[in-house]
């Protein structure tokens, strides 16, 4: 028996003499040759590589039953059993199947701009946001340079494709952020609460977004926080406007981290230097505290982030209805935001993301008409309407959220995702002495599937079922998207979706027959991108139904539309070390909502918006220069006044603002640039918005009788910021390497 086993070994030298020639061709499923495919006889040295026409040939000395294997990058491994004769030629026609993989497969780009290093086709990353000239490291300000967003600067928010600011919602790690901006001040836009450096990825969907998100008629800004910081560090920031002290500690095994920081903003010194139009009797002051921890689990991560802030300010402006009176506005705000999420790879193709969010926001506001000596003023019955301008307002918004998303990888990279979310919100508001409360239980079920027919053709189908107890309505929102690669670097995509949003709490206080407001999006997109260049053309049509009307009674009988075309071009190739992007948006929109007497172009919509953002980092002087220029044609403004019989609002006055122009400039000096793993990193930043001092008219405020109008302008023509950001750190990358040895 043993001898029989040994026998073939003795015959080995003889076998060398007899060879079989194997020739043939390797093709893919569509009959195209696969150059570079490697063909081999398993467990032997014999094999060959397909040439540029897919042809191959080699000889083998193997005999009998053998396995032939074909491998090619981007294709599934192919095996075939061969019965090899002693000699002769064997001709093979081999067909191998394309491997659908995430890196090669087409992604739906209709409607969305991805930002961050994590995403392919990312438009910009955290650093790009921080270095957008004039944006002052504000996420919203940077995203305003992308097509689809309006250059509105008298109120905060992203006004997307004919949508109001509240039609764009922000989401962090899956849950909605209820108060993403610092509290509103009349006619002055406020910054966002979150630093771009908290996030590893951001997607700005200007329409047609995923069924995983809802309650935003126009756009969704989804942000994903960073997983594990690279290093332990102490951070300090100093400026005439603010001071920050914080630390981030990463465990030596890089499995967990925690961080805290405190930031204080006081603009008193700044307001001395840069005169503001309003009379600030209480200079804006902010205390912000942040905390976080992250723990790596077996196949995922638990992340917690919290921020607490208190801000106060008070300002006076001339009263429009009289020559000597003033309107005083005083605000005190507390905001506490919490986000806890757990992402886990459950194995067997299953993934899970659980997130919870809790936030509470309290605004204590008083408005008062004051006399020349800043004393409260009471009015005679004849002008009792003047008393309407004096009031106290307490507004608390609390939202608790729970969301679970499960994902299952099916054959190939096809995936299905489904889950559910629940938001509890309450909004007690005390106006003068009356308390109103709006409480809502919002539930949603959602499912979404990604199908890849080939690497070049993909579909996303989704649906979202929503219920809000406050209006006691249920709605089903279908979503669909498709992407088709038409060339090596170009693709077409299409997105469709229905989007629902419950009316704002301010509109729900008065009862009435209210339903979900609704928008239907149709988006067609063409994208051509290489690593350093991107061209994106998009056309859209958006239909609004059931917008909120506030007159003659509160209901959802409003309607409208928006349509337009947009262009985006980013180029980092043509001029070395020079990066620029250009955005252009054309928008045609009209709506009949609130107290509008008919279909009108809303005051936040300009027909043409253009931005160019340029960045140049000059290495020898370790300094970056960033210039941003934005232009928008005039926006309409209206004075709507109730007619004599009180049955209808009429347009008492209307017009168009002058065009909007803004040149923003920032410079950042980074002395540690170019040093790998520098212990100390320092960045010196200076930022100026509206360098040229263009008049940025947002509209007009009207007197009670409509006879006087005052322009709405920013509190100062230009705004400035200088600061130095320093971090001292220990890079944990080295520790990891040491521990693994």
């Amino acid at each position, binding site marked *: 028996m*043993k001898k029989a086993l*040994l026998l073939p*070994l*003795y015959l*080995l*030298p003889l076998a060398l003499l007899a060879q079989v020639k194997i020739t043939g061709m390797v093709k893919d499923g569509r009959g195209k040759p696969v150059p*570079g495919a*490697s063909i*081999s006889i*398993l*467990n*032997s*040295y*014999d*094999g*060959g*590589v397909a*040439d*540029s026409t897919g042809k191959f040939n080699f000889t083998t000395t193997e005999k009998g039953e053998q396995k032939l294997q074909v491998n090619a*990058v981007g294709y599934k491994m192919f095996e075939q059993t061969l019965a090899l004769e002693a000699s002769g030629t064997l001709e093979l026609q081999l067909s191998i199947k394309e491997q659908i993989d995430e890196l090669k497969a087409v992604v739906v780009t209709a409607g969305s701009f991805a930002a961050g*290093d994590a995403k392919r086709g990312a438009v910009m*990353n955290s650093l790009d946001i921080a270095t957008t000239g004039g944006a002052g490291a504000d996420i919203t300000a940077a995203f305003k340079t992308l097509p689809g967003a309006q250059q509105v600067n008298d109120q905060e928010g992203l006004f997307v494709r004919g949508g109001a600011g509240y039609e764009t919602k922000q989401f962090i790690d899956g849950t909605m952020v209820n108060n993403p901006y610092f509290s509103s001040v009349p006619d002055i836009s406020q910054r966002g609460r979150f630093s771009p450096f908290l996030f590893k990825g951001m997607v700005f969907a200007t329409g047609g977004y995923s069924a995983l998100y809802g309650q935003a008629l126009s756009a969704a800004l989804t942000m994903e926080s960073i997983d594990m910081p690279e290093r332990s560090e102490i951070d300090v920031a100093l400026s005439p406007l603010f001071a920050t002290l914080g630390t981030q500690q990463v465990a030596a095994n890089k499995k967990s981290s925690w961080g805290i920081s405190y930031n204080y903003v006081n603009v008193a010194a700044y307001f001395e230097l840069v005169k503001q139009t309003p009379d600030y009797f209480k200079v804006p002051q902010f205390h912000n505290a942040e905390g976080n921890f992250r723990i790596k689990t077996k196949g995922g991560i638990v992340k917690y982030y919290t921020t607490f802030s208190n801000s106060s300010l008070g300002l006076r402006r001339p009263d429009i209805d009289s020559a000597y009176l003033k309107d005083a506005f005083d605000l005190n705000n507390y905001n506490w935001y919490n986000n806890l999420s757990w992402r886990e790879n459950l194995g067997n193709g299953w993934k899970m993301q659980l997130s919870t969010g809790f936030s509470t926001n309290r605004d204590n506001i008083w408005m008062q008409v004051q006399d020349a000596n800043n004393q409260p003023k009471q009015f005679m019955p004849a002008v009792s309407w003047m008393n309407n301008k004096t009031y106290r307002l307490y507004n608390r918004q609390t939202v608790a959220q729970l969301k679970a998303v499960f994902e299952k990888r099916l054959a190939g990279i096809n995936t299905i995702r489904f889950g559910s979310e629940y938001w509890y919100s309450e909004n007690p508001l005390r106006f003068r002495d009356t308390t109103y409360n709006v409480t809502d239980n919002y539930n949603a079920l959602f499912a979404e599937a990604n199908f890849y027919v080939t690497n070049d053709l993909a579909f996303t189908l989704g649906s979202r079922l929503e219920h809000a107890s406050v209006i006691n309505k249920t709605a089903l929102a279908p979503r669909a998207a498709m992407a088709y690669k038409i060339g090596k670097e170009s693709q077409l995509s299409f997105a469709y979706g229905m989007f629902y949003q419950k009316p704002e709490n301010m509109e729900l206080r008065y009862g009435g027959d209210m339903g979900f407001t609704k928008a239907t999006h149709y988006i067609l997109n063409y994208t051509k991108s290489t*690593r*350093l260049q991107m061209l994106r053309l998009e056309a859209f049509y958006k239909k609004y139904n059931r917008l909120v009307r506030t007159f003659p009674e509160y209901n959802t009988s409003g309607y409208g539309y928006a349509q337009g075309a947009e262009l985006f071009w980013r180029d*980092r190739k043509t001029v070395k070390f020079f990066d620029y992007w250009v955005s252009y948006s054309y928008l045609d929109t009209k709506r009949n909502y609130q107290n509008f007497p008919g279909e009108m172009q809303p005051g936040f919509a300009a027909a043409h918006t253009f931005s160019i953002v340029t960045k140049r980092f000059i*290495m*020898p002087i370790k300094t970056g220069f960033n210039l941003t220029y934005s232009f928008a044609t005039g926006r309409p403004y209206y004075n709507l006044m109730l007619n004599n019989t009180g049955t209808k609002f009429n347009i008492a006055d209307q017009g168009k603002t002058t065009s909007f122009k803004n040149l923003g400039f920032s410079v950042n000096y980074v002395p540690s640039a*170019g*040093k*790998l*793993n520098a212990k100390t990193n320092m960045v010196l930043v200076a930022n100026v918005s509206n360098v040229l001092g263009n008049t940025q008219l947002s509209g007009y405020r009207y007197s009670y009788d409509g006879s006087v109008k005052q322009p709405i302008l920013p509190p100062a023509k230009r705004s400035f910021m200088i600061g130095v950001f320093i971090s001292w750190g220990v890079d944990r*990358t*080295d520790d990891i*390497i040491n521990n693994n*040895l």
Partner: protein
Amino acid sequence: MKAFILAIALCSGIAVQAQSDKYVQAVQKNLALLDSSKTSADLQTASAAFERIGDAEKTQWLPYYYAALAQVRAAYSDKSADQDALATKALALVSKAEAIETNADLYTIRNMATTIQMLVDPMNRWQTYGSQASAALQNAIKANPDNPRIYYLQGMAMFGTPAQYGGGKDKAKPLFEKAVALGKAEQVKPLHPHWGGAEAEKMLPLCQ
């Protein structure tokens, strides 16, 4: 009985020897092919041949090393080729080799592959891939501080980095000198890599 066992031992000895000769011949043949490769297609043919040898042998890291080296050279020789794909293939081959043995030469391939990936987009990738590339060389030094290829690669990295980024010819020169000295002193085992010293010597005049 004893004779029978002896016979088996002898026979299997002969068989191993035969197998080993076949291995040596195949590696030598393909080394010649690798050295004479002029085009990307030649390099891919050599790489595939080495990978087949590695797959068939199962206990030899050298075929995978040469298969990976051919991928790296393909990336160097044709800048228009998909650099990421070639580097990824090289790293996959190194991983196969490292399942058998880890050593300084395999770390040098890791260094070259991650450097290729870094150079695709230095502005954005320099932090991640740059760190990986330098970590690979640190690991190589820990594995064998006398490997001349490490210092040749360190020298090339310095040579290619502008002085304002902390590189430059002055800093590259001592590294090339070290590579030359170590290259001359290196006891090369049959079939094992022995490049680095000669390449460093060619770089020295350029550092003046």
